[in-house]
């Protein structure tokens, strides 16, 4: 079984967010990028499948800043190969466009299963797993929390709100949108990361024609606050004292 894991870097917006002068995007010049956490789980699920039943795992990403290191870290985690897809689309790349490139790459690389994160914080125009599956005409399940190889294909657990879940049998080839891996993503040692720095990353060139998407961002802005929050400043002791008074006044402490 050959598993392709699609990995994406997303803006790490812990600091002040700058908006571009046209008001339609975030200023990416100074922001840090981080691995989309759901893709981290997708990679873990692929490695777990490899360990339990044997599989070849290829980590793949659309080329961009930081992608070499991203793919090397996937190798350090247990992926066998890494490939990046050459393109010239500025971020954020809509799922429909990413799916065109990935569908072409899937045909070149060849695989039985594509795993990727269920969503990112910037996939405003649709999620990648169902988009890619529809584009390939492969079956798909998203929001998964467990995948195992059964006699007739995959057994996939899908989570719903309120603690409900269902198990589906999925025939391959297939695409899965991973919410949580069967086990939390593993820690990787610095030694393994350093070893992976020398791994060769395959460039994939594909020929793709994309039309403008039917939806566009007109503006980005900060959300309006409810305005009800009372911010409490000061040292931890001062803030704790004020909060303790509030909790007592509102009858919210243990009697």
């Amino acid at each position, binding site marked *: 079984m050959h598993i392709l894991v699609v990995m994406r870097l997303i803006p790490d917006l812990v600091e002040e967010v700058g908006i571009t002068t046209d008001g339609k995007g975030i200023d990416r010049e100074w922001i840090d990028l981080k691995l989309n956490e759901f893709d981290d789980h997708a990679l873990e699920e692929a490695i777990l499948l490899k360990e339990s039943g044997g599989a070849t795992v290829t980590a793949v990403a659309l080329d961009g800043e930081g992608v070499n290191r991203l793919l090397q870290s996937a190798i350090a985690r247990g992926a066998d190969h890494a490939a990046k897809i050459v393109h010239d689309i500025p971020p954020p790349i809509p799922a429909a466009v990413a799916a065109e490139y990935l569908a072409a790459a899937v045909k070149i690389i060849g695989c039985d299963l594509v795993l990727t994160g269920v969503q990112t914080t910037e996939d405003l125009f649709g999620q990648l797993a*169902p988009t890619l599956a529809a584009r390939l005409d492969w079956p798909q399940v998203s929001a998964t929390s467990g995948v195992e190889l059964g006699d007739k294909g995959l057994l996939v657990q899908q989570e719903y709100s309120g603690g409900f879940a269902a198990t589906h049998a999925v025939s391959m080839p297939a695409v899965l949108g991973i919410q949580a891996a069967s086990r939390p993503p593993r820690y990787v040692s610095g030694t393994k990361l350093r070893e992976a720095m020398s791994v060769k990353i395959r460039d994939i060139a594909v020929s793709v024609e994309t039309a403008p998407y039917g939806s566009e961002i007109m503006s980005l802005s900060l959300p309006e606050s409810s305005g009800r929050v009372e911010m409490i400043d000061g040292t931890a002791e001062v803030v704790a004292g004020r909060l303790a008074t509030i909790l007592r006044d509102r009858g919210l402490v243990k009697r």
Partner: protein
Amino acid sequence: MAGVLVYVESRGGAVQPVTYELLDAARRLATAGLGEVICCILAADAEAIAPQLQGADRIVTMQHASLSPYSAEAHAIALASVIESCPPDLVLIAYDSVGLDLGSCVSVRTGRPIVAYCTALGLGGDALEASSLVYGGKLIARTRTRLPAVALVVPGCFDEEAGKSGGRGEIVPLRPPGALESRRVEFVSAAAPDPNELDLTKFDRIVCVGRGIGGADKIPVAAELAAVLGAEIAGSRPVIDSGWLPKARQVGKSGTKVKPKLYIAAGVSGAPEHLEGMKGAECIIAVNSDPKAPIFDVAHYGTNCDLFELLPALTQQLRKG
């Protein structure tokens, strides 16, 4: 105009509350110029479910054994077939596990653009104008989408009660497409919450930790505060996915929705999926070092103190009595 179609979510024959919210959104858009409100029930017993949907003008039903319980592939095939036979200007699907599963698939199958994470919807000429929460709720994107289109709507943004009435309720059965006979995804089994597991909805005080807690070894800092308050400890999704707390303690879209008297959020950024599960709490105290964290948009009291300094200090203060 050809109307707004609402995809009906049902479980065990009961229409889910979010569907009524979508019917309210659809009615507003229908009144603004999109014509009628249509809803679409895809289930083995679709016609029995129809009387619960008095907010729609037309109720399209499609019955087939493969449509209950829900499975992504069967519902995508059936919904695409309904859309092609109507066809509506706009399709509304809830942004939850089902929406994440189904929405983009239907968008590609029917050649319609999709816009996700919508919290507000309106019309501007011949296009849909939507507001969506992106970057974990830190920014609002205002988009313009050509019709016909698909929109994924965040639960909790429209009026559930308003969506329960006001329609003609004409039932239109549709024949299931032949493609439903050759499926590649088959439902195997369902799992409901274990009644013996902790039920967070039963507690009136909750201390919830987010990614900011940093690791399972740091949970005791929050657990000690919870003990002094007589509260239960809970976690946001990253905490649960990292294995720092068990699944039964998860608050949010894919966990439990809670409305306690007191909710202390420590190191929780406040992604829309989390806020959906706790914004109804009576008193919300947020502790986060990031002043722009969206959790402060729903909190009553907030502080940017380091949680590892504040939580022990608050525990100490409360112990003093």
